[in-house]
């Protein structure tokens, strides 16, 4: 495999304590959010298992375990930077600063949701934060390319980040988006979250080479692989890539090895994966790892950690309560918003 285009990364992005704590806090918030809605999702789905029943109907793709990929990249972004994500996007939405209450309300299908209940958990749009997600695998890659093109034409230094899974990297549009970003030298960062699964199909069988980041050489752009769900490495690599993009240095492709703690969606019987896989992944929980790293560094105490957990829980609870108590849209609202 060719690694020629892999750039040697220098620690140009300095990690400060507050930033580290902020990242840990966001990871805690994401985790708490995902676990809370996972529990709520079960409500109303017994005795008959009906995906459409209960306070959270439809599909639910959780991102617990994948927090570093969201947080380590988005920490470098401003509200005017653009992020387009895929179907598994709660962690990225939260890391990009999308309002937690309106996010939760959208997942519940409430009128107060980000999209007034029309989008749902796979279709989250927040123009204030320039965040969007998508129900079609791969579809969001070129959206970031276009935003980056616009920023360049507008003379801004904003950047765009396109997230996709390891499965999405086998869609044709991935190739088109990378080539366009490269020939136009646009400020786009492509982030592949390699959780090693596309639903039931393992990356090992779906992808002809072991690292999507090596596909960067097909576009003459830097490609970096980050093993082992490593928050601080992601922080560095993404910081460098985003800085370069802002300064006109063009696109970067980053692949992050990450962990899917739950099934593809809640309710997935997961017959296809080894019984102990999740256990092994859980043993490497990125939250514990970051916590320990910070404690070792002297930037965090156990007590402070508990406070962070408490604060994150409170924020999530407040958002969930907001969502629960919000009204549903009126049925006739279904007819609005087809055209502007």
């Amino acid at each position, binding site marked *: 495999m060719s690694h020629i285009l892999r750039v040697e990364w220098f620690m140009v992005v300095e990690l400060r304590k507050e930033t580290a704590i902020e990242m840990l806090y966001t990871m805690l918030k994401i985790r708490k959010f995902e676990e809370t809605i996972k529990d709520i999702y079960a409500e109303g789905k017994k005795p*008959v*298992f*009906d*995906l*459409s029943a209960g306070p959270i*109907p*439809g*599909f639910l793709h959780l991102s617990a375990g994948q927090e570093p990929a969201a947080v380590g990249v988005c920490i470098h972004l401003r509200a005017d930077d653009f992020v387009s994500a895929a179907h598994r996007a709660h962690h990225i939405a939260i890391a990009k600063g999308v309002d937690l209450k309106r996010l939760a309300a*959208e997942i519940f*299908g*409430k009128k107060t*949701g980000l*999209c007034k*209940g*029309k*989008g*749902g*958990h*796979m*279709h989250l749009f927040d123009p204030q934060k320039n965040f969007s997600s*998508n*129900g*079609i*695998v*791969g*579809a969001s890659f070129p959206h970031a390319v276009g935003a980056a093109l616009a920023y360049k034409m507008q003379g801004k230094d904003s950047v765009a980040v396109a997230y996709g899974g390891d*499965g*999405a990297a*086998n*869609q*044709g*549009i991935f190739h088109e988006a990378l080539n366009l970003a490269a020939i136009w030298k646009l400020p786009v960062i492509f982030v592949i979250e390699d959780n090693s699964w*596309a*639903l*039931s*199909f393992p990356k090992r*069988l*779906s*992808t002809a080479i072991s690292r999507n980041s090596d596909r960067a050489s097909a576009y003459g752009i830097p490609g970096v692989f980050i093993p082992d769900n490593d928050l601080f490495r992601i922080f560095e690599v993404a910081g460098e890539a985003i800085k370069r993009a802002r300064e006109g240095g063009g696109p970067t492709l980053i692949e992050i090895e990450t962990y899917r703690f739950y099934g593809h969606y809640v*309710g997935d019987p997961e*017959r*296809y994966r080894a019984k102990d896989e999740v256990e092994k992944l859980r043993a490497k929980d990125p939250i514990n790892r970051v916590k320990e790293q910070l404690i070792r560094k002297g930037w965090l105490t156990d007590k402070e950690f508990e406070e962070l957990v408490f604060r994150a829980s409170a924020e999530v609870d407040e958002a969930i309560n907001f969502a629960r108590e919000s009204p*549903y*849209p*009126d*049925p*006739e*609202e*279904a*007819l609005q918003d*087809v055209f502007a």
Partner: protein
Amino acid sequence: MASVAERRLRMYRAIAEAIDQEMERDNTIFVMGEDVGAYGGVFGITRGLYQKYGPEYVRDTPISEAGVIGAAIGAAAVGMRPIVDLQFVDFVGVCFDQIFNQLAKIHYMSGGNVKLPVVITAAIGGGLSFAAHHSQVLYSIFAHVPGLKVVVPSNSYDAKGLMIQSIRDDNPVIYCIHKRLIGVPGMPCPETAITHVPEEPYTIPLGKASIKREGKDVTIVAAALMVHRAIEAAEMLSREGIDAEIIDVRTLVPLDKDTIINSVKKTGRLLIVDEDYKSYGMTGEIAAIVAEEAWEYLDAPIRRLAVPDVPIPFSRPLEDYVIPSAEKIYKTVKEMIK
């Protein structure tokens, strides 16, 4: 149609059985698609096949729908009979060229020299809060393109017979499976969708509608889930002495015009119920055929009920509002017969 309920199967099992029996018979048939292997298909229609036929013949694919359908075309051109599972019909956009310009047209463009016996299965329909990217019907888009047959079973018996026929057909077939009829865990279906299914292989011809209920006052034409909603509505109407005839088209292409026209000649009234978007779709086509060919027999304006030209919204009250319900069918018929 089966009246004796000896062996009631859910639709996904009926389809899996049809594919299995055909694969036993003919080793040029194979299945490809995302999660069709160990997972058994997102809608269960390949359950058990991977274990029986192995990963060559029940082939999991990467998320590369255009490449995979293109590969089915190439394989069919040299003698295979591929079945490709697209999962959700909503994903058609990433592989539409391979379907509408390649699969649909190559037989014609080749002057009839190349045959492409390919079946594409795709889940349609809403009612599960899957929202705008996983709840569409879209069959009228396929039906608009010459060269594709379009099949839409409404119950297990039809599903098996239509699947075997689709596999044996020498033409490309888009086989639509309604998520609210398929019957896999998590997606409950009406009891009326779970019918007797004979064990032995049998076929149902493409292009033959099924009269689900005879009646003399109004003709209701529907497909898939809407057939069941129409039946519900007809029961409500019959309590008021209104006698609805219900036609399940079963295939959009070929369309059984005769059955529809004959029914309208008898009832003088036509309501078309569809879960697809209203405009430029199935309801328009059927209305037009009747307005052309049975106009003299109409006693009232034709009526249509369909999704009112909005994407399928996520939130339950919104989605319930846009998908035609038994109540709406009932009310519309009442308006037609005053």
